[in-house]
């Protein structure tokens, strides 16, 4: 099967039959499971470290979480828990201006994906080996790894996707199994952003897809090249005069509507605003996708075109609820 690598679109792999048992089955804690636990120290607070960077300028060495992540994934692949070796799938640049990338993946099968819902109790029980590691927020100075620990209730989980689309493809479950669904809220978004900041690897990206037909969850993977949308020119919609603050751009010349949010030294504000917008979209049952890249400092939002939404930004006040269902033409 030939999939075009545009995660931001309604990627068919994210649809599955809502009649599957996930929503009925209560979550049970992973009793007795011991996996590596990464303690995210308080130094990883979002206001320092991540600000003041024009682009992702990773330090010269791999970060600890990056090493752990890649190691656990590679270990899982080596042990044969994945359905196929995704690195054996050929990548080709599709001729054209925007250089989309296609992947020839004979192992990927929609049915396999439909059957496997990572959040059912049965699935987790049967496939404990797919649980790579957990991340917990702890008040310590420097991050640490506990090699074998029981999973704290509100730890974020990293679960490998046995049908990977790219190297390192996982499901990210912020704040554990307590919530049935992974509807976007500021807390969840903050957690995955912290993970991206901590991994500090430009190849690492986080994805989120919300559609009323789907069960939404965060996914992540590694891909060394920039995604096509990241290379597109942008038009400033909102750039405040204050030095710190949110900047919002519309991506030009792209087949689907896309907006780019950059925190400019203030990731907390970025997270709050994006989470607010996403919540609003969810309330309105507007499907959308989110892409977090550049070590957590950039977020691309793709509201689905069929609802014909525009993002309207109030330039006077704060970046509050920004969506209007009316059709303000952006003044040019």
């Amino acid at each position, binding site marked *: 099967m030939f999939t075009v690598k545009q995660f931001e679109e309604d990627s068919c792999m994210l649809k599955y039959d809502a009649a599957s048992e996930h929503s009925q089955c209560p979550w049970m804690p992973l009793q007795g499971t011991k996996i*590596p636990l990464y303690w995210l120290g308080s130094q990883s607070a979002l206001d320092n470290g991540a600000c003041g960077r024009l682009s992702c300028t990773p330090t010269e060495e791999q970060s600890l979480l990056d090493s752990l992540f890649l190691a656990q994934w590679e270990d899982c692949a080596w042990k044969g828990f994945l359905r196929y070796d995704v690195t054996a799938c050929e990548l080709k640049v599709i001729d054209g201006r925007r250089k989309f990338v296609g992947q020839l993946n004979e192992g990927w099968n929609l049915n396999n994906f439909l059957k496997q819902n990572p959040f059912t109790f049965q699935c987790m029980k049967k496939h404990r080996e797919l649980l790579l590691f957990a991340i917990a927020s702890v008040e310590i100075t420097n991050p640490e790894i506990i090699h074998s620990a029981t999973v704290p209730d509100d730890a974020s989980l990293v679960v490998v996707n046995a049908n990977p689309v790219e190297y390192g493809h996982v499901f990210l479950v912020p704040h554990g199994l307590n919530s049935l669904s992974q509807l976007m809220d500021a807390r969840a978004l903050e957690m995955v952003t912290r993970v991206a900041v901590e991994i500090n690897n430009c190849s690492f990206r986080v994805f989120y897809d919300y559609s009323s037909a789907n069960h939404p969850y965060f996914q992540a993977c590694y891909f060394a090249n920039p995604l096509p949308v990241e290379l597109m020119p942008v038009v400033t919609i909102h750039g405040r005069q204050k030095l710190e603050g949110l900047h919002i751009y519309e991506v030009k010349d792209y087949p689907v509507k896309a907006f780019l949010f*950059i925190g400019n030294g203030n990731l907390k504000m970025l997270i709050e605003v994006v989470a607010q917008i996403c919540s609003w979209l969810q309330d309105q049952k507007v499907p959308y996708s989110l892409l977090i890249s550049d070590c957590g400092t950039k977020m691309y939002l793709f509201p689905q075109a069929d609802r014909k939404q525009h993002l309207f930004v109030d330039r006077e006040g704060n970046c509050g609820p920004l969506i209007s269902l009316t059709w303000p033409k952006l003044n040019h």
Partner: protein
Amino acid sequence: MESQLALMDQSFNSRYSSLVREALDDLPDSFTITDPCISGHPIVFASREFLKISHYSKDEVIGRNARMFQGPETNRKSVMEIREAIREERTIQLSLLNYRKDGTPFWMLFHLSPVFSMEDGRVIHFVAVQLPIARKSKGFTSGFGRNDCNFGEAGSRLPEIVFGSCRKEVCMDSVKQSVPLWTRGSFQNLDNRGLEVEESCEASALEKQKAATSINNILSVLTHYSELAGKLVCGKSCNLSGTNSLGSSLIVSLGRIKQSFVLTDPQSPDMPIVYANDAFLKLTGYARHEVLGKNCRFLNGPDTDAKVICQIRESIQTEQACTVCILNYRKDESSFWNHLHISPVRNASGKIAFYVGVQIEEGCKNGWGRGLRPEMRQLGVVGAVKVAVRSLSMGAGPSKS
């Protein structure tokens, strides 16, 4: 930092004779030379004219990556285009906004060109010429970027300083030229358009020609002196014999990995080492030129278990990963137990491009203090290598396989 500078000097002096510096200093152009084979892709040479226009001193520049000259208004897309050009080992010429030491920005025509070694076809240096240009476009840049200093009142706008004739079109409320400008101006109200596509500064045809000529002059000097050093270089990719040479951007990515590892080329006869990082050289006591091009068996010795060697060979033949414990020997003939993990690494075509071998010396405690067990750290290296090697060059067109 002295050893860092010495490393820069050595990289340079060993490729060309040491006389090259004088010759380069004689050139009137502003240019820098960077070495993609050193971790971080640092600057190893900066011309006098470059230091003059950037206001930095030599010591502040040598050993640093060229991103230090970028700033808030630098066009991100241009930066990415440069990165791609580096990855694809080709020349690129574009307008770029850089920043001097005092924070003032200036537009320049940036022309980058790779320098290839004729021995193995690898890129050993990049030459970048900077030609300052006057800004002629009427639009304003509303580039995206970050701000890292709180300057001025919340309400005031501080537009960027621009060259030449555009100055009068900029709203100059309260700007003095000496003000360090790490701010960004939002020009939405300056004219009623409100929304601007980011514009760059176009260089004239004459300026582009001038930049190209500068590059050629520099390359001539380098070629001449490399001949003297016996290691000829050239400005074009000369090695098209199909060997699996490593792109510079891959080398830069691999430079982030501090654990000892090598990459070997299974498509070349006898599977030679094509990449060995500093940690490997330190572990084994060899110099880089002594290991590149050789099969790893030179690490084996009298007491190395033949069965283990067989096991490795079988794994490679079946294209499987394996972990073994093998007795290896350093250059000084001392031995050590090597917990070795070998894995095939595929590139974007899906085919095996390299084998990675990650070495852990038994009993060695370096670097494990960071909390990851040695075996996990090994696999972390494998993962990082796999991600890096899988990257593809984004040139349009079919893959090369």
